[in-house]
């Protein structure tokens, strides 16, 4: 890295950039994009926060770079700096060279000529990234006309329709007239990609483009992104927290931690021979469809440092099991690894790791399973039984004279059974009825139709008093650990609240609270603190403690780890597994992350449009799914292993989840079913007319007429 004279530093104190003469040889770059020693600081009343602390990377023409990091690692801020879209209060230093010309210190007007034309970006949340008051077509045409003043409105609109077709929007002429709220999340993200590729940019930055989407839609979007890259020949920078997403697509990846790149290399190097302990820990802590269920997860202890108050030394040292004294005093630079020109790592002990002197798998101790004598004795009996549960919502119109114009079949006759000490994983895309199902169960009231049995007793036949007593036995842990804890109550009151409801005396309550806090791995002395003083993982432990304080038999877990960072997830999953063994709990585990479900569930039920389409032992369902939907769902999950990703074939489901108001005759999955299209006319007729009953095929219970022909799909 050459360092030119900082002569302009005093002239412009706000934006300490390198002098900008793009034609001097010292400043040119043969790379498409080169980021040199980028630092971004946000001044704040309580002291400045340096979100990016010296980042160097480059992207070549047509290359696919993945940048991986947890929230707060500076990955989004550094990409916004490239686009020149940071708030004006941000202090940026270092240099950003695009096609050899420096971007820092340029005016908004100059940069705006480059944005969209040379570099374009796809943002995370497609729900809010499009202006709600303009049609999709207008917003794409706008991008075109901004960079080509001579383009007529008509021609821009025609090109917009063409672009919508490229990104796979069916019926693009009509859909171009639609407003963003008429598009589903996946379709909006396709429209975002259409905007991004409209002017054939040389670089596309995709900032968490699939994080807000379902796994089947994620697979579609990644495919569209790859197609867009092939069409335009653009280089792509994909920013994500999900190692699986980059494994299959990227050429090189860079791992960020605490505002710096801590490891970079080709995908194979980083995934197969990681040399920074953080990368090693991250890869080991991720539940992985290929290995989950057999091995215990290895958690990465601790939490990422606060960037406002960074201790000297390596920022990862406090969490690093192999940290030595030197790690706590000096921050290691990103040093190349001998023999691998593209691979570099910021660790003092990189040589020991790279040479194999330090065994990668041995760095993180695998947590011990719960000792046999601590395990609870389990009498195998059914604790929660659901039979033909139905929840329909009427769709009404009119405010004075309400009349029903349709029915939302949120839950449409589902049955399952959970035995003591076991976990049932309920999976499916958003909108399939998972949440309605658990809300119906937790209500402990008579359902619209069907039966809910808790501990072998029908809840519909219970008195109010009995029902209240029963609530002690069935508790819930919610998805968002911040939103589900009252910010104005100290933790002990939050945890003790269920006991207050059931009239437990104060002294007993306090003792119980201390016991459960200890059980979930929190220090009981922290009981008088408030929720905001805890990290995300700790807050979720508080949520679990609150659920456990009444000694329940059944715990309903509604996406308990999906709001947590990858490195924190493993610890919570392990805790849930340990608690189940120690207390003999039964879990109803609702999640959209199939790898997490694979890790924890004994049985799995797959939901689609209010129905369970397949259920059975987790082992069977994950290894040999019999329903085409399950198969597609599993194949859509990215695996954090580049060699697996490259060889396997994805089954991409067409379109979005249909609306639950639609009346689909016969099998309700046939509109998206890949198997349906492979069947002959007689078999298709059966799918169209007859609603498939669940039947046992190879150990799992499947609702498909043609499960025996599932082999056709691969």
């Amino acid at each position, binding site marked *: 890295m050459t360092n030119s004279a900082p002569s302009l530093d005093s002239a412009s104190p706000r934006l300490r950039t390198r002098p900008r003469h793009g034609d001097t040889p010292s400043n040119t770059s043969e790379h498409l994009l080169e980021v040199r020693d980028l630092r971004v600081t946000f001044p704040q009343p309580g002291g400045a926060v340096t979100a990016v602390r010296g980042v160097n990377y480059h992207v070549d023409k047509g290359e696919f770079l993945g940048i991986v990091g947890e929230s707060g690692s500076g990955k989004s801020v550094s990409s916004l700096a490239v*686009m020149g*879209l940071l708030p004006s209060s941000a202090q940026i230093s270092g240099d950003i060279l695009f096609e050899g010309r420096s971007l820092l210190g340029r005016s*908004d*007007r100059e940069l*705006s*000529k*480059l*944005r*969209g*034309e040379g570099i*374009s*970006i796809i*943002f995370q*949340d497609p729900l*809010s*990234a*499009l*202006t*709600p*008051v*303009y049609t999709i077509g207008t917003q794409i045409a*706008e*991008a075109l006309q*901004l*960079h080509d003043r001579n383009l007529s409105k008509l021609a821009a609109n025609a090109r917009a329709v063409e672009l919508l077709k490229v990104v796979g929007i069916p019926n693009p002429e009509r859909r171009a007239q639609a*407003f963003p*709220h008429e598009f589903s999340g996946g379709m909006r993200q396709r429209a*975002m990609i259409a*905007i991004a590729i*409209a*002017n054939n940019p040389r670089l596309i930055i995709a900032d968490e483009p699939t994080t807000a989407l379902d796994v089947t839609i994620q697979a579609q979007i990644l495919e569209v992104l790859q197609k867009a890259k092939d069409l335009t020949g653009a280089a792509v920078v994909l920013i994500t927290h999900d190692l699986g997403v980059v494994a299959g697509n990227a050429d090189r990846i860079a791992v960020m931690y605490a505002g710096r790149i801590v490891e970079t290399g080709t995908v194979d190097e980083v995934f197969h021979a990681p040399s920074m302990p953080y990368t090693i820990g991250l890869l080991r802590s991720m539940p992985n469809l290929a290995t989950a269920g057999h091995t215990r997860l290895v958690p990465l202890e601790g939490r990422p440092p606060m960037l406002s108050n960074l201790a000297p030394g390596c920022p990862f040292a406090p969490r690093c099991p192999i940290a030595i004294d030197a790690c706590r005093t000096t921050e290691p630079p990103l040093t190349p690894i001998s023999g691998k020109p593209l691979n570099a790592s910021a660790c003092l002990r990189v040589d020991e790791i790279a040479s194999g002197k330090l065994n990668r798998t041995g760095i993180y101790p695998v947590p011990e399973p719960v000792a046999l004598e601590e395990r609870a004795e389990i009498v195998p009996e059914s604790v929660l039984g659901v039979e033909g549960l139905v929840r329909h919502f009427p769709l009404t119109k009119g*405010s004075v004279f309400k009349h029903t114009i349709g029915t939302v079949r949120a839950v449409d006759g589902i049955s399952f059974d959970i035995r003591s000490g076991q976990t049932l994983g309920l999976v499916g895309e958003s909108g399939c009825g998972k949440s309605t199902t658990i809300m119906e169960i937790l209500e402990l009231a008579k359902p619209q139709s069907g039966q809910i049995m808790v501990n072998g007793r029908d809840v519909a036949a219970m008195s109010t008093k009995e029902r209240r007593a029963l609530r002690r036995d069935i508790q819930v842990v919610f998805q968002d650990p911040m939103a589900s804890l009252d910010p104005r109550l100290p933790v002990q009151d939050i945890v003790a609240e269920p006991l207050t409801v059931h009239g437990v005396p104060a002294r007993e309550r306090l003792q119980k609270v201390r016991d459960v806090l200890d059980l979930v791995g929190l220090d009981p002395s922290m009981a008088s603190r408030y929720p905001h003083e805890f990290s995300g993982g700790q807050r979720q432990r508080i949520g679990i403690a609150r659920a456990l304080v009444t000694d329940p038999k059944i715990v309903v877990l509604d996406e308990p780890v999906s709001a947590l960072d990858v490195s924190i997830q493993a610890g919570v999953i392990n805790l849930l597994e340990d608690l189940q063994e120690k207390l003999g709990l039964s879990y109803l585990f609702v999640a959209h992350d199939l790898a997490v479900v694979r890790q924890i569930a004994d049985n799995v039920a797959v939901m689609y449009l209010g129905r369970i389409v397949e259920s059975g032992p987790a082992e069977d369902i994950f290894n040999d799914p019999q329903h085409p939907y399950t198969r597609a769902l599993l194949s859509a999950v990215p695996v954090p292993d580049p060699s697996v990703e490259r060889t396997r074939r994805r089954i991409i489901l067409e379109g979005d989840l249909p609306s639950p108001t639609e009346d689909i005759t016969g099998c309700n999955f046939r509109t998206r079913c890949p198997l349906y299209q492979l069947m002959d006319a007689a078999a298709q007729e059966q799918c169209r007319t007859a609603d498939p009953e669940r039947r046992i095929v190879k150990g799992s219970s499947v609702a498909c007429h043609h499960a025996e022909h599932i082999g056709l799909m691969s």
Partner: protein
Amino acid sequence: MIGFIVKRFINYAILSAIATLSAYVLASLILNPAGRYLGRNPRPSDETINAILNGLGVNPNTPVVARLWTWLVNLVTHGSLGDTIHNTSVISEMAARAGTSLRLLILGTIIAAIFGVVLGVWGAVRQYKASDQVISYASFTILAMPSFVIGILLMIMATGLNNILGMQLISFTGEYTAGLDGGWWTLFLDRAAHLLLPTISLALMGAAGYSRYQRSAMLDVLSADYIRTARSKGRTRGSALVRHGVRVALIPMSTYFAYSFATVLAGAAVTELVFSWHGMGEMLVQAITESDINAFTGAILFNAILVLIAGTLSDVVYAALDPRVRV
């Protein structure tokens, strides 16, 4: 969509009817039209007073419900709102005055809306900078000032200006100069010169309120993701804020428009008095001071109809601005 607007219109119409009827009942209970005659010298006989009051339909000895019924029957069968104390019909009084008030109100509201939106957007974009602070403090000052103070301050300034220029550039008494001769153009200029100060006075009050709401609506929009998207397409910050930001920030303003219209009406009544305009506001204030129940109800009906129109208009504007509510 049209069904929705019609439904809202019917709602507003029912509310206006309720407002007018309650105003009638309230005025009948509180105002004492007989008092006007009792103080006269020589005092008219009780029979005379009763006859006059009966003629107007405001005799306190008749039960309120019976009077309200008569008033309603007259309205429905003859389209009459009764007579004023001065023995003119309320309808003809209103017809003479409505144009005056509407001219002032419509101009004032439009100017207030335009300035309010521009100042609000400007303040939000330059949040906490000097210009934003100036706009904020200025609008707080205006909001805190009673409307007659603003009117009088404007008059003082206009007088100062006229003195400096040595000519009557700005006239501010009445609607037009009485007895002015000249062509159409001269009359128009004269009316415009008279219109200037009252309009400014109304517009200032309106704009002060609008700009606060527009500023906060705009601040919500400033950090929106779609502004970032628009900039990433190649718009400059300013152009993205105008094309994508202001357009969205206007949506909540249309609701505020309906609610604030009523306050503007109240302010207009005082403004008319200050500038000696013979409009509906003056009629309302006079009706109260003269205990004229019929005129009072007429003035309230006028206000209610204006609020009804403003409310319906704001619904139409909302639907025009926001495709998400179009059905």
